[in-house]
């Protein structure tokens, strides 16, 4: 850990030594593009077999990576896509998109004691609801899938971007929370009357649980409660496998072969969240590898020369327009128009300079940052192909 200092680090040693790089940060900061760019740069410069596991890529980015319509299938990004960008990759780039529902189904099929139980779970309407909507389930399954792919030993490097969550740190706790959830005491208590009465059997209520069930029946209806209990009874048969698996996922995230890169823009809210996230990573003893400051404005906006010139353009727009008319450039004959344009140019510089100053100030407010702090400039155009990703990749590797 070092105190905040001007950006100047690079991701190349992390990408060369780690096996998993998890990109995280609040929504809208450009995690997906940065993660994909890291994959492109690693495959191009370092070689080896690299996988980009992405959660929710923009459509054009997905199609650039060849990910249209193929959930959970790892596909190689065609070498032609690199050649079109003037790149000669030393390694292979693969990409996969997370299909939450399918990943859950695979998990159930893997852990269920028998096929009958598996299908009973898959067909349960609560299951469909949970896997489709339960927010935490996305967090968990992303980490689970990462573990799954890593265990196949097929890749030298896996870069993953994290799902959009209410709270950027949710997914760190997802494995532990999932294990708690299915093994919890409350759940056992809840399903007990049904267990004692046998599956689908009548409830056997004891003194402690009777008031709860009477109340719950009035509120939710007994059928719904029974559905819930039945679902969890089925799920409990998988508990052992599930809990072990969650622990293994947790271990992998803590493993020194795994590192985290926090992505943020230099805006108040995302930056505060990034700061919080950095603190949480340190507190929980995860490896904090890098901080990526994305979409930053160019440094020239901070130059005193620029500010002076902008002021002069605004203050002396009229006389300057007269001088420019003297250059005999045909478009500069209308001095009123030229003066208006000069004033606009000066004003626009001052506008953007204020934002650039705010960015610079926010950067100094970051108290604890990892060794590698990387600046990625705000590209004026959207990044949606390998050549664009390579441009971001250049920034990640620049030293």
């Amino acid at each position, binding site marked *: 850990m070092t105190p905040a200092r001007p950006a100047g680090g690079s991701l190349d040693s992390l990408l060369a030594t780690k096996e998993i790089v998890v990109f995280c940060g609040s929504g809208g900061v450009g995690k997906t593009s940065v993660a994909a760019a890291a994959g492109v740069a690693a495959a191009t410069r370092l070689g080896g077999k690299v996988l980009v596991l992405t959660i929710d890529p923009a459509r054009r980015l997905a199609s650039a990576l060849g990910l249209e319509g193929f959930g959970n299938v790892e596909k190689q990004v065609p070498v032609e896509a690199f050649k079109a960008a003037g790149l000669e990759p030393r390694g292979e780039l693969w990409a996969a998109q997370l299909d939450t529902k399918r990943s859950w189904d695979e998990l159930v099929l893997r852990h269920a004691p028998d096929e009958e139980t598996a299908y009973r779970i898959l067909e349960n309407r609560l299951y469909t609801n949970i896997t489709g909507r339960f927010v935490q389930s996305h967090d968990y399954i992303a980490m689970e899938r990462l573990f799954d792919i890593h265990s196949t030993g097929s890749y030298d490097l896996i870069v993953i971007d994290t799902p959009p969550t209410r709270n950027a740190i949710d997914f760190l706790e997802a494995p532990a929370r999932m294990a708690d959830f299915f093994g919890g005491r409350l*759940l056992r208590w809840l399903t007990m009357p049904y267990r004692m009465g046998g599956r689908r059997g009548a409830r056997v209520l004891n003194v402690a649980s009777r008031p709860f069930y009477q109340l719950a029946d009035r509120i939710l209806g007994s059928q719904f409660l029974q559905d819930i209990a039945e679902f969890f009874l089925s799920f409990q048969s998988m508990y052992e496998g599930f809990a072990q698996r969650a622990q293994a996922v947790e271990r992998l995230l803590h493993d020194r072969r795994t590192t985290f890169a926090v992505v943020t823009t230099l805006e108040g809210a995302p930056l505060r969240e990034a700061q919080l996230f950095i603190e949480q990573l340190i507190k929980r003893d995860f490896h904090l590898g890098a901080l990526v400051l994305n979409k930053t404005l160019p440094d020239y906006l901070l130059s005193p*020369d620029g500010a002076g010139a902008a002021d002069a353009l605004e203050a002396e727009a009229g006389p300057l327009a007269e001088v420019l008319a003297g*250059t005999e450039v045909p478009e500069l004959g209308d001095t009123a128009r030229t003066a208006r344009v000069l004033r606009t140019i000066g004003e626009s510089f001052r506008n953007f300079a204020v934002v650039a100053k705010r960015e610079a100030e926010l950067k100094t407010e970051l108290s604890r940052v990892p060794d590698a702090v990387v600046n990625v400039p705000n590209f004026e155009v959207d990044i949606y192909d390998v050549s664009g990703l390579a441009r971001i990749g250049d920034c990640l590797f620049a030293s």
Partner: protein
Amino acid sequence: MRPAPDLLARRLLFFTGKGGVGKSTVTAAAALLAAERGQRVLVVEADAKGNLPGHFEQPSVGFDPREVYPGVFAMAMRTEDSLKEYLKLNLRVPVLGRLGPLARVLDFVATAAPGVKEILTVGKICWEVRESIEGRSSWDLVVVDAAATGHIIGQLDAPRAIQELVSVGMVREQTDWMVELLSDPAVTALNVVATPEEMPVNETIELVGRARAELSVPLGAVIVNRVLPELFTRADEETFEAIRGDEPRAVLTERVGPGATAVLEAARLAVSLRRTRAAHLAELREAVELSMLYLPYLFVRDQGLRVTKMIADSLAQELGL
């Protein structure tokens, strides 16, 4: 394009949007604008990040509404509190003393059975609106900083989802009036906040499509936040390009100093950013067929009451108020 509806005349406004587009800022601004126009506004933070009162320079709030600005009362949604209130109002149960552990269990059920947590959120919101409409409470308008685009359908569809999952019981009976209230275009509107960038635009288009297909909640407006100013008219842009030429640039450098190049470059960046975004805006406009409200990019400040007020002013202009 339909004309901008008189949004503030409704009773319940939801605001959703992709993370990072300024959803909370716009929600706060809408609340402030309504309050400035004499309405008594409840603003509900349903996408709990705890920073909504920050837009009024106030510390975070709890489940009980607190005035954060003259006429604006803020509350943070907490499903456990919502459940307790519900039980107290509807059951008048003698077990109230033992509600602690019971609420924990029910909260657990809520986590396990999706839709329950959402119904406790939407239910409380609808209840506040209904109480006001029927004169037992005094909110002229309830404004909700709702779930982000990825989760808003689940949140607003909760009453219907519960109707499907739960066939009998009190919760089931309560969902009918909620669905009715949420579906009434005179009462409710779902508004989407976006920025003119690729992902927010895509998500907005997708959400509007899904909302039309899957929800009965009427759509309000699409609010485009952080729109960069158009620097030049087409003719002015030709002049700008001419100024960037070698000779004029050299003349300017001589007159205003070596910073001239940076200033010209900054203007080129501004033009280029605006152009990329304009394409996304055009796509959005064409795809959603909803009234669009445009809010300018604010160079001066990032967040806080000053920004909330500036956004509220722009919103007023866009609504023709």
